[in-house]
């Protein structure tokens, strides 16, 4: 299949691995930001083919993983109300709230529907004027523009029974939070290619310079990932630290202008809580003052649901690359994909789920 096969070519993979082996002389800790990249490394068995000097740590770029617990509880509270059709991307349904997940709400009669696009949620609202239709707008800059379009469309069509429960997050503030932490181990980043396709990468040169850390915009196929790693290793070995684009077929410096315009016309940056990490200043998107009428939190009066995270799983340390999933005592025992303790075990992009799925043998022999 075009645009896939040439980036999964075994010969190209082999030659890139040789180039990385030739370039690396010291030990380096490199974080891939995006859960999709984590998943791809493990899905293709690529992590185990890398030279031993390279330690991959897995970043917080999994939208399901970082959506805060109280936002899940708010979603559950809304979805449980009669007269509500609650719409969501599929993998949010299994994320545990403090008492249950959205699957359980559905099993108890809640009208919860998986949609592939937020515009479907708007259509559902149009088709069911007697119901309140809520879309769970989560994710990074990748999903935010489409979700903004849904709100714009609802406003344009004057659809009154549509609202969004927003939990959007931004990548650059999370990178800065990781780098500014005293416990940081990350020496270079593979930046998330899809986020950069929307936002460009003009936000990265100042971060690369300030923290002396190479940032390489990287795609999601094996050849992309290795090109990203090779560029990062070359920068690290030569003492350089700049923002570099290895995903040129999808990413331009300035990004996608119309997507950004949609995003900024509906959302404004605000402080956001990240599950397992805490509040990061200006790290999220919220509805701008003009669009407050679409805010499901206000419409359903769930703003005052606050939930304390407990201390049973180490997701925070995993999401910052401080620990590997198998360093958690609960991993594979109390915590499995079918009965997850924490979000990283839930999502297909979560680091714990990826390790459980593809690499249990490393842990159990």
């Amino acid at each position, binding site marked *: 299949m075009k645009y896939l096969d040439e980036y999964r070519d075994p010969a190209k993979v082999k030659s890139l691995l040789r180039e990385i082996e030739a370039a690396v002389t010291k030990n380096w800790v490199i974080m891939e930001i995006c859960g999709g990249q984590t998943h791809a490394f493990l899905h293709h068995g690529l992590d185990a083919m890398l030279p031993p000097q390279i330690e991959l740590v897995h970043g917080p770029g999994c939208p399901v993983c970082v959506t805060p617990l109280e936002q899940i509880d708010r979603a559950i509270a809304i979805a449980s109300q009669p007269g509500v059709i609650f719409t969501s991307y599929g993998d949010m349904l299994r994320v545990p709230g403090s008492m249950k997940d959205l699957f359980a709400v559905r099993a108890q009669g809640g009208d919860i529907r998986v949609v592939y696009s937020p515009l479907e949620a708007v259509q559902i609202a149009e088709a069911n004027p007697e119901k309140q239709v809520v879309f769970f707008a989560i994710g990074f800059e990748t999903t935010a523009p489409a979700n903004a379009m849904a709100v714009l469309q609802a406003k344009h069509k004057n659809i009154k029974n549509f609202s969004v429960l927003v939990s959007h997050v931004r990548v650059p503030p999370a990178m800065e939070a990781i780098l500014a932490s005293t416990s940081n181990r990350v020496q270079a980043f593979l930046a998330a290619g899809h986020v950069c396709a929307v936002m460009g990468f003009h936000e990265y040169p100042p971060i690369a310079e300030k923290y002396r850390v190479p940032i390489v915009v990287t795609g999601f196929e094996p050849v992309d990932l290795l090109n990203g790693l090779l560029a990062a290793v070359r920068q690290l070995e030569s003492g350089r630290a700049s923002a570099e684009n290895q995903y040129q077929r999808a990413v331009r410096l300035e990004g996608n202008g119309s997507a950004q315009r949609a995003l900024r016309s509906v959302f404004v940056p605000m402080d956001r809580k990240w599950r397992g990490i805490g509040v990061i200043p200006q790290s999220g998107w919220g509805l701008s003052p003009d669009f407050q009428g679409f805010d499901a939190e206000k419409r359903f009066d769930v703003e005052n649901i606050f939930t304390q995270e407990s201390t049973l799983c180490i997701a925070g*340390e995993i999401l910052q690359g401080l620990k590997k999933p198998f360093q958690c005592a609960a991993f594979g025992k109390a915590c499995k994909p079918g009965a997850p303790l924490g979000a990283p075990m839930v999502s297909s992009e979560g680091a714990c789920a990826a390790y459980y799925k593809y690499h249990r043998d490393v842990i159990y022999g």
Partner: protein
Amino acid sequence: MDELNFEGYTCPVPIRPTDTVMLGHGSGGSLSRDLRDQLFLPELGKAAPRLLDDSAVLTIEGQRFALTTDSHVVSPLFFPGGDIGRLAICGTVNDLAMVGALPAALTCGFVIEEGLSFDLLQRVVASIKNAAQEAGVYIAAGDTKVVQKGGADQLFINTSGMGRIPEGVNISGVNAKAGDVIIVSGTIGDHGIAVLSAREDLGFETKLESDVAPLNHLVQAMIGAGDVHVLRDPTRGGLATSLVEISEQSNVTIEVNEQALPVKPAVKAACEMLGFDPLYIANEGKLVAFVKESDAAKILGMMKKTKYGEDAVLIGKVIGSGKPQVRLKTAIGGTRLVDMLPGEMLPRIC
């Protein structure tokens, strides 16, 4: 920015097991297995879970018979390449065939929601007739129940079947041995993606058709050609789930070669788009076979001469025993594990 203190930030309290049945319990993955092993088998079962195959094998006065049952729920009732009627016949015929039985007779139970059109029901029955003729089985008994509007989704069909197992045939998930060669009878994932594409809300179109087909004639051809140890039709949960089950039943390590897996471009494209893995997509007219290494070429050659086996290929081997595990040699030369589906298969976010 203020220094963020990451110490002590953690994830949520554990979610408790649900006290209700969820859709995921019907997905054919590990939730389904939990339901079977923890609720049904302790009360109703006789055999150990690892001995369970697609059909039960009963010995009556020295003659072995296979017995199985399967309920069919599919939406929409008619999908590209098939319908609930053909599915109901093929599903049960194939379960019988997977223990090497010669399917003889089926029963057919209909649960109908009031309001279903006679025309639609007539078309389903015609399809049942055609599929039964193709498989060479007859419908020996039937039952009809009608429930009020909303009590069922249009039409559910249960079929049960029995067949005789010929002398000398011994096919079971416990029989995989180190050295066995693994064959899959054709492209994987066709049924699941065809049904998915037929749902209006998905917004993608494909010419792909379901592979729903009776495999009993194919199985008899294989048995005639060589020593077949294990057969399974990878329906819900896909090929991955079948392989994991067999590795556990036989306590063997399986290695599958990703590049050898036959996947149609349309299935591959749909999976890439939705974030699915073809290994977990349902099939209704495919089988996976573990055969004696020295007989593999002969069996494969025979399969390729049949209607439903012409795309058959070798996909892997049993590389050892004592450790139940399925490994995948990835196309780029890496290795990873293959696991069962935990619950429902969910499209990813981005």
